[in-house]
């Protein structure tokens, strides 16, 4: 063990050692604190919304706002959601990338000599603070339909500290197993398994170390991804060790059927999000939602990209049906969050900060990103329609959420400050 860590320390300045406490020197999880913990959830979709019918009337703001057609299914929660208009990521130029920079606000071209750059996403900033005491620091949910759904590059909505994509869980069955499947093997064997996994890391590191000899600087940077990945596994193994004698939470939901797609897939993923929070398996989740299979599951024949270029007719109808279905699904998620009671009598909803939206407004518009906020976790003023000055950084909204959750971030992405109007 010592040699490997020593090597990790010396191999590259970028690889820092995990703090001792996260390496599993405490045998058990932190004692349950009295107050329910704060959580953060992001739900992102590609291809935007229907401009004409999704956004509430800008003339009716504050608490006196009216639901738009596309948000109608959220009527029962109107007092508990806030719609924010006017925000965007100023560097976003890619008209078909709905998620790549959504939570990061990064400039694709910030690095001279590179044609792609990204930076940490808001959920990962939160995970570093909210994720210490749970089995998983964060969980990224993804869809097998990502390429067809207008998200742009990435493996989930999340990007790590160094702006590299964080892998997501591809489908509800995999997510279920990650969260709730317990190993049936006895503790001693699982300990042996952990030891074996460490031996595997030792072996591949031996090879990586040799490979590193004589590489150029750019190549060493590239190989650092490998080292970083090994470190991530290490951290996870450390956490696994810490949680070895704690069985995974018993799932409050049944194992999903394999092959779910579109509407059903989203619905089941939402159920899993609630289950993950309810069991305190993690406190930070993101979900990169399907759009292509959503349309198919609604029996809409229009291809998703073509839908986003709607004009009145079947494509606009498809776009509106998508809006309504997504709102309906979100309303169902809010129902469940509200119904779930915490130990102190409050609800799960009261402790979640949830954002739902896309980097694409509609068609090829990247300004006024559709944004719905809900949940009491970030102490935001809910039941509002907020029209902010045009081109307010979307990252100001994320920063406001982070502050509300008690995450001490100074800034995020291209933020210029918090959104005071959002703070309760």
């Amino acid at each position: 063990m010592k040699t490997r860590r020593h090597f990790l320390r010396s191999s590259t300045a970028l690889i820092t050692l995990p703090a001792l406490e996260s390496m599993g020197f405490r045998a058990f999880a932190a004692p349950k604190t009295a107050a329910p913990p704060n959580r953060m959830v992001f739900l992102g979709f590609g291809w935007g919304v229907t401009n004409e019918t999704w956004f509430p009337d800008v003339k009716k703001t504050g608490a006196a706002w009216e639901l738009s057609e596309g948000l109608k299914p959220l009527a029962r929660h109107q007092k508990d959601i806030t719609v924010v208009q006017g925000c965007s990521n100023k560097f976003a130029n890619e008209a078909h990338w709905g998620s790549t920079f959504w939570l990061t606000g990064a400039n694709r071209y910030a690095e001279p000599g590179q044609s792609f750059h990204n930076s940490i996403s808001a959920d990962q900033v939160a995970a570093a603070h909210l994720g210490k005491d749970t089995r998983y620091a964060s969980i990224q949910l993804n869809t097998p339909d990502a390429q067809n759904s207008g998200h742009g590059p990435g493996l989930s909505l999340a990007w790590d500290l160094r702006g590299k994509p964080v892998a997501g869980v591809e489908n509800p069955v995999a997510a279920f197993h990650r969260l709730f499947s317990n190993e049936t093997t006895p503790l001693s064997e699982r300990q042996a398994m952990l030891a074996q996994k460490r031996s595997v890391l030792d072996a591949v590191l031996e090879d990586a170390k040799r490979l590193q000899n004589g590489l150029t600087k750019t190549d060493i940077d590239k190989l650092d991804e490998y080292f970083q990945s090994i470190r991530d596994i290490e951290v996870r193994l450390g956490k696994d060790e810490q949680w070895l004698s704690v069985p995974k939470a018993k799932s409050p939901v049944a194992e999903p059927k394999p092959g779910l797609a579109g509407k059903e897939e989203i619905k089941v993923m939402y159920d899993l999000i609630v289950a993950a929070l309810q069991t305190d398996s993690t406190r930070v989740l993101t979900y990169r939602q399907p759009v292509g299979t959503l349309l198919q599951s609604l029996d809409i024949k229009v291809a998703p990209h073509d839908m986003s270029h709607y004009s009145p007719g079947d494509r606009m109808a498809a776009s509106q049906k998508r809006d309504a279905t997504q709102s309906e699904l979100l309303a169902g998620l809010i129902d469940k969050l509200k119904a779930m009671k915490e130990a102190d009598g409050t609800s799960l909803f009261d402790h979640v900060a949830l954002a739902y939206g896309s980097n694409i407004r509609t068609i090829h518009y990247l300004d006024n990103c559709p944004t719905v906020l809900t949940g009491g976790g970030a102490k935001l003023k809910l039941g509002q329609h907020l029209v902010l000055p045009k081109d307010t950084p979307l990252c100001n909204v994320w920063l406001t959420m982070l502050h509300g959750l008690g995450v001490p971030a100074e800034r995020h992405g291209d933020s210029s400050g918090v959104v005071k109007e959002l703070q309760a």
Partner: protein
Amino acid sequence: MRRLLVFLFSSVVLAADPAMPEKHRALFKEHCVSCHGPEKQKGKFRVDDLPLAITNVEIAEKWQKVLNAMNSGDMPPEDEKQPPSIAKADFLDDLANVMVAARRSLGDQKGVITMRRLNRREYKNTLRELLGVEINVAELPQDGGSGAFDTVGSNLFMSANQIEQYQALGREALEEAFAWQTAASVTKKLHYEGETTTPKVRDFVKYQIDARERAQKWVKAVDDAAAKPENKEIVAKLRAEFPNVSRFRREWARIPGAPNPRTFGFDKKGENDADLANDSLGAGWLKYHEYYTQMPDVDRGAYLGIQTRHPAELNVNYIELLVPFDWPVGDYIVRVRAAAVKDAPAERRFLDFGIHARTGKVLNTYEITGTMENPQTIEIPLTLTRANLSRDNRSLFFREKGSWDTNEEGNRKRAEAVKRNGIGPELVLWVDWIEVERVSNAAKPVPPGFAALKLPLDDKSPAPAAAELHAAFERFATEAFRGTPPPADYVERLMRLYDVRRKAGDKPVAALKETLSVVLASPMFLYLAEPSPDDKRRFLTHEELATRLSYFLWSAPPDVELRKSDLSKPDVLITQTNRLLDDPRSEGFLTAFVHQWLGLDRIDFFEVNRALYPRFDTGTKVAAKGEIHETIAHILKHSASLRDLLKADYVIINRVLAHYYGIHGVKGEGYEKVSLPKGSPRGGLLGMAAIHFMGGNGERTSPVERGAWVLRKLLHDPPPPAPANVPAITRLAGKVLTTQERLLAHQEDPQCASCHRKIDPIGFGLENFDAAGQWRTEDSYTALDANGKPDPKSTKRWPIQPAATFFKGPSFTDFFALRDIIASKSNAFARSFSEALIEFALGRPIGFRDEPLIDGIINQAGKKDLAMREFIHALVSSKEFHTK
């Protein structure tokens, strides 16, 4: 290092920074400077001191702001004087293109090739070469996605999940490979006679007749009971509640005296028995089933018809054969002896072969030329792997092409036939028998991974001794690392791991597989490394060059011959390059390169509307996709000219496409070269159905999509990427207009015109191809009524008018003239091809310093009439290809 190779091209680099032309200052002066100049800087933005040359990221961001503000229509503000449309369009046109160039220039890796990991395809192929098996790698994250080739290293990331996936997939590959090796000599065979179906249909007919009689008796009994005066009240109530008679009868239990359907033999096992009786009354498709049994030769074989009943009940639509679960992975041959009846129409003489009929994965389509007197036998090679272990990927099926691709489409065809003859589609395809054979792999060479291992592959032999294992791990790792021996400590670690597994109770083979899987997740296996300690550019070593060449032309590791060749000798390099291109493994290059170069993923983005294009069924779509690959493979194989892709007097098609295009002359079963009659619109990419299918949405054509594709892929004049925030034109929505009238609106707004004036005319010239790639001379448009349904009264028809004029270029009268103009620009096409090739081969984006390389490649290929193979020879002999 002394180089024997003389490099073809100099590497003088004189890349000027991309700059806006001086003339555009006038627009700035006239329309911008009063608010964004020395006096006022509204929004803290000033343009008068903005340099025209974009030399750094800050300047680029400022110009991007200008582009965004003008594209969105925010600047100049509405109430200010607006620049003339043409000037504004020119300005935006130049700026958008300069920004593309600037991004490229600022993102230029200066020729540096980032070390990269194997991408998903290469990883799969590398395992195949090492272990002799193909595994499914779909669970690895998709590569690329930012528009670059999947070989570009800087976009290929690594994550913790991935490392674990690599180990799991490596383990899976080892399981599969061990299974192949241990079952190498197993042979199996099953034979299925077509007439197996016939007694089933006969019995079903008997059953249907009998059940109908019983159902009629029951109905009569229920009706009699219902007619009894004492039941009047309840019957009236039920009739009101259930106006439908079947539904009414379902409530038989509430009518006193009505008999239980079960007494008539209808037992639906716990569900309502009346449903079964009601259903039997209709005897659905009895006539069709009777028709089947009355066909000649049903005692010798089976006809392939349509779906009538649920396939579990009776299946006359397809024949499905499950490969027995205990048959091992390996190479299989499927044979089918089939015929078409004498008067079968030409379009119904095609047989689909695939796996799992219900989800309809068609693998290939065959034309049936055999007659009832003299049927033909088709042989289909097939590989089954550990991914084919479940029923739904182990059931082989044969079905008439397009007869039941989807329920919707099957129902439509069936209803049409019933309307015509009262029975259903005529039975025209006949199957005598089917054979599935598992053939021995024993004669195949042992894959290099196993050759290196030299260890027992089952636990019957004694466990290997430590020294033997140590040597085996070292040899296996060396092979997996493409010839580089592993460090000693690494082998030690592997030994320890093996011991851990053995102590944990693993048998030797299990411990061996577990240990070897670590090798397949190690960096030396996953990364293509070219170390260069002093950060200086250097020539590649022989081994590195062999690796680079084989990952370029095979997407797979070099074989022994390549590793041993002295590729620094020009003649050896030429010989080896030709050998690689002629090897079947070059499929790995061709498929991936063509797919990404031509942007073919769009083919699978949407489904064709089969009501509008019934002939473009699944089998035809598969064949049309194949045409692109087969044509390019032909050109590469025969050293033909790249020009053939722009215009050709031949096509490379199979029988399915020959029928679709109405071209005669295909003789064999596969794709082959057929000469075109004079005046045919086919030949070259612009004659291919799949290309035009991509340029639409499965329903209507999209001249914009097509025009942009031609500019991007053929004419080396790519329009800038879809700009963000350009206002959409909505005023024409719902109006009944011709495509041309609709698109002309693009010319009114300068923001639209700046790109569309180039794109749209080309699209107009291709309008003779419909959304499924068939030739047409007329188009129509039907508006939707208030309920969103097509309103036939609104339908407008118009003849296709393909005449148009290139922006600042020549005019053309029709498709043929357009094709000639495009074909005359073969140098632009050669440039587009060369750039794609360089990016794919070197795994880095094209930079400005690549201009000499591109010119050199085109020059060399130009001397051989732009022979496709010559581009590859020129590239692999260039200095760039030989340099880290």
